[in-house]
């Protein structure tokens, strides 16, 4: 069994400027933000994103001025509003975009994972998602089914350079498990040329084998494993901790103004030397208040009052 455990600094150093990245996470959950903060700390720039709905990643990187272009379907902070940093980057012409539907962009990843050059799909036809093009040389082509003549669109396979996925637990070889819904993690892992897993905890492989139905990634799909407890903070992790809503509201308020957001980055990303310094700054009391109820998998309903 290979030992793929690496440090956060080491794996981020291996990601070149200009890389095409895809990130795990959905809405306010399981987003690999410890790694994203390290990307910003290490000064990675000119990044490209192949995204579905990784709103927190996109908005952090946009606010730090680190993304050049993004193919995606939706960035929205549920309960807060549209992603201010990302929207501003696009409105100012600093970030190039290519819009897809959820199913279309995910199908591009699925095609890559299946080892086929394209897949036929039904949505997007007849709309500006087809007519109004961004930076993509090939986005989708209308096609008539060779058997029935039924109109479909063909979308080409998409192969990001690196997938960065945050999971609940992984063994040292990279077998990775998630509780709860899985969003696009499995499709992203099979599409990407390299897969970095960040995990709440590194466990013995006997723990994985005791509940194999939770495994989203078998080890051969995974190139590196990084242990980062609370690595999704301020987003939540099912069965570990809830999203930190107060932190998110503060972030969102700061993101409305570039100077205020610069201060947020200085305080929470560039200031702390590493992930442990970041967690110390958030504080033990607040982190513990976010812990999940073992029965529910989320913090107790009606008692979400983390300070």
């Amino acid at each position, binding site marked *: 069994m290979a030992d793929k455990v690496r440090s956060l600094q080491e794996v981020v150093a291996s990601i070149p400027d200009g890389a095409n990245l895809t990130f795990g996470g959905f809405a306010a959950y399981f987003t690999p933000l410890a790694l994203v903060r390290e990307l910003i700390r290490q000064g990675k720039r000119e990044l490209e994103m192949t995204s579905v709905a990784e709103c927190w990643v996109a908005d952090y990187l946009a606010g730090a001025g680190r993304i050049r272009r993004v193919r995606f379907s939706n960035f929205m902070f549920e309960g807060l509003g549209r992603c201010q940093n990302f929207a501003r980057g696009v409105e100012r012409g600093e970030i190039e975009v290519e819009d897809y539907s959820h199913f279309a962009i995910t199908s591009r990843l699925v095609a890559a994972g299946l080892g086929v050059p394209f897949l036929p799909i039904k*949505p997007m036809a007849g709309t500006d998602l087809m007519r109004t093009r961004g930076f993509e040389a090939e986005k989708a082509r209308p096609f008539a089914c060779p058997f029935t003549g039924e109109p479909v669109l063909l979308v080409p396979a998409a192969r990001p350079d690196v997938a960065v996925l945050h999971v609940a637990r992984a063994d040292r070889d990279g077998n990775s498990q998630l509780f709860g819904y899985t969003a696009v993690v499995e499709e992203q892992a099979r599409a990407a040329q390299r897969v970095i897993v960040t995990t709440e905890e590194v466990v013995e492989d006997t723990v994985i084998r005791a509940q194999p139905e939770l495994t989203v990634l078998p080890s051969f799909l995974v190139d590196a494993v990084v242990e980062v407890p609370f690595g999704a903070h301020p987003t939540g992790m099912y069965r570990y901790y809830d999203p930190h809503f107060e932190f998110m509201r503060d972030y969102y308020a700061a993101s409305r103004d570039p100077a205020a957001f610069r201060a947020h980055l200085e305080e929470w990303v560039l200031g702390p030397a590493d992930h442990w310094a970041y967690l110390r700054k958030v504080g033990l009391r607040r982190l513990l208040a976010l812990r999940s109820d073992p029965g529910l998998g989320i913090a107790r309903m009606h008692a979400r009052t983390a300070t």
Partner: protein
Amino acid sequence: MSANRGEGAPNGVTRQEIMAVAAAREIRNGEVAFIGTGLPMVAAYLAKATHAPDTVLVFESGIVGAKPKELATGVGDLRLLVGCVKSTGLYYALSLLQGGFIDIGFLGAAEVDQYGNLNSTSIGDYQRPTVRLPGSGGANDIGSLAQRLVIMVPHEPRRLVPRVQYLTTPGFLDGPGARERAGLRGEGPTRVITDLAVLDFDPASKRMRLATVHPGVTVEAVEARTGFALLRAPTIGETPPPSAEEVRLLRERIDPEGIYIGQKA
């Protein structure tokens, strides 16, 4: 949209409550419904609590058969996961749309045009927009593939526009036959529910028409708040008002904090 209970509606019922109730009534018992954030969620919970207990709620995050105990902040909220029947991925959830398993979907948007096309992408030039909106997400998939689509928007001239600035989600595209030519599934949009009225689409022209006005709202007021020439259904009735039980469920059980249905008086 006003959040003030009582404005323009009798008996202290908010316009959001009328919208939620009208949307809930679009769901038939036993249907599989694809649900987005906000009022659609309130409507779906209400339908399950009243006439459609066997409705199966599907969320794009990969949550199937949710039986939520409290209101979620969005489709990815893990409160939806507690007690659902299947927890899976986004690709599976959206494949249910393309596979033809979804009976009804609900969508909001920044703009809606007379053919029921929606914009949730951008205002102004696409590459250099005045306002960059969140993007399609699953909206285009729902509009392209659900058997029926119900649109929910605040009734404002800048939202109900002759032509959307970016066509994110197909309604009837440019008119009769266009969905079929594009290879899309389903009937397309069947209802538009606003805070003033319920609208549907003329079967021949596929253009939006006024079906019912909410209690206390005039036809002229609706037309004045619409950015294009609205057709009129042969007879325009009044939207049946929420029952006392529906209002009680909304206020006491589904949205007690008034997050989506408006503040308590």
